[in-house]
C-alpha cells in the first residue's frame, strides 16, 4: 500500500449538451489528469457523458446538515415568492 493515499476527487458528468453537470460519485487519483482518466473509465463506460468535471473533494465548501434548518430558515416564511401565493380573480387570463 502506498504510504500516502491518493487524494479524493468528486466527479460531475454532463450527460448531454444542454444539461448541467451532475454529481456521479468520487475517485482517487494522484493528479488532475489521472482523475479525469479514472473518472472516464469508472463513470462513463456506456457513453454517459459528453463532459466531465473533477474537483478535489477537499476543495468543496459544504453547508452543515446539522445547521440546515437554521441555514435555510430565511426562505421558509416568504411564501409570497411563489406565484401560487396570489389569488387571481375568475375571468383574468394569461397571467
Amino acid at each position: 500500500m502506498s504510504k500516502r493515499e491518493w487524494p479524493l476527487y468528486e466527479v460531475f458528468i454532463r450527460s448531454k449538451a444542454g444539461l448541467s453537470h451532475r454529481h456521479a460519485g468520487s475517485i482517487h487519483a494522484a493528479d488532475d489528469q489521472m482523475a479525469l482518466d479514472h473518472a472516464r473509465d469508472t463513470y462513463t463506460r456506456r457513453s454517459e457523458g459528453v463532459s466531465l468535471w473533477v474537483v478535489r473533494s477537499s476543495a468543496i465548501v459544504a453547508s452543515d446538515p446539522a445547521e440546515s434548518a437554521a441555514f435555510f430558515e430565511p426562505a421558509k416564511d416568504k411564501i409570497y415568492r411563489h406565484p401560487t401565493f396570489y389569488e387571481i380573480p375568475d375571468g383574468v387570463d394569461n397571467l
Partner: protein
Amino acid sequence: MYTQGLDQKGQTANNRGTTESQEQLAAFQRRIDAEEKIEAKDWMPEGYRRTLVRQISQHAHSEIIGMQPEGNWLTRAPTLKRKAILLAKVQDEAGHGLYLYSAGETLGTSRDQMVGDLLSGKAKYSSIFNYPTLTWADIGAIGWLVDGAAIMNQIPLCRCSYGPYARAMVRVCKEESFHQRQGFDIMLALSRGTAAQQAMAQDALNRWWWPSIMMFGPNDSNSRHSAQSMAWKIKRFSNDELRQKFIDVTVPQAEFLGLKVPDDDLEFDKLTGHYRFGEIDWQELSDVIAGNGPCNRQRMARRRQAHDDGAWVRKAAQAYADKQAAKKAA
C-alpha cells in the same frame, strides 16, 4: 455484483459505549420511517454507520474478487466476440467495486483501510467466488445464476435508506442486466449446440445452482442481524423472500434451456404459486465463509499478488504528481 449474507459477519452489539441519546435514536428512526434518505454528513447511529461500512465494503470486495473466476476464461473465450464481451463485463466488476468503495468512503472509512481489511483477511467477500470456473459454460452459469441472484438482492438496495449506497446501486443495477443476459446467451448457445456442449451446460448448472441459492444467506430464522437492517431500511426483503423469488423466476429459464435443476425435491406448488425446493447444505456455506471453500486461498493469494505487483505503478504515479506539483510551485 454480488451482495450476500454480507450483513452476517462480525456485527457486534449496536451502539455499545457510545453516547447516543434515546431522542437522537428516535429522531433518526422517524426519518427512516418517513422514507427520508440519510446522507453522508447527517447524524446517524454508530451501529448504522458500522453496518453500512461493513456491508458496502464487503460488497465492493466481492466485485473485486469476482473478477478472478471470470478473468480465468478471458484468454480462452471461444470467439473474439465472446472475449470482448467478457472483458467488458470484468471491467464492469472493477467499476462496481470502485462505485462501492466510493460510497463506503462517504461514511468516513478510507478506501485504503477497506482494501487493507480485505488483504489482511479481516473483511469477507461473497462466498460464491470461492468456487472454480472449470469450463467455459461456468462463465455462462455465473452470468445467468450468480448475477441473476445478485440482481434480486440489489434491486431493493436501490431504495436503501443510505443515499450514497442507493445511488451507487442504481448505477450497478443498470449494468448488471447486461451481465445476466450475456450469461444466459452463453447458456443458450451451448444448450442449442452439440450433445457435448449441452452436457457442459448441464454440468455447470449442477455445480453453480446450490452455491447460487446460498448467496441469499441463511434462513430468516437463523439470520441474526436481518431485523435491525430491515428496521433501518438498509435491507428491504428477507433472505428467504429473495431466495424464493430467484428460484421462481429461474426454474422456468432452466426449463427453456432444456436443463435440469439439480434438486430432486423441486416442485411447483400450484396452491402458493411458488416452487418448493430441497434442503440447502448450510454446512457447505459456513465452510466456504470460514475460508475452506475450493478456492479461498487461491483468490486471496492472487489478490495480494496483484496488489503487490501494482505497488510500483502507484509509487511512480505519486512521484510524477509530486514532480509536477513541485515544477508548478517553482
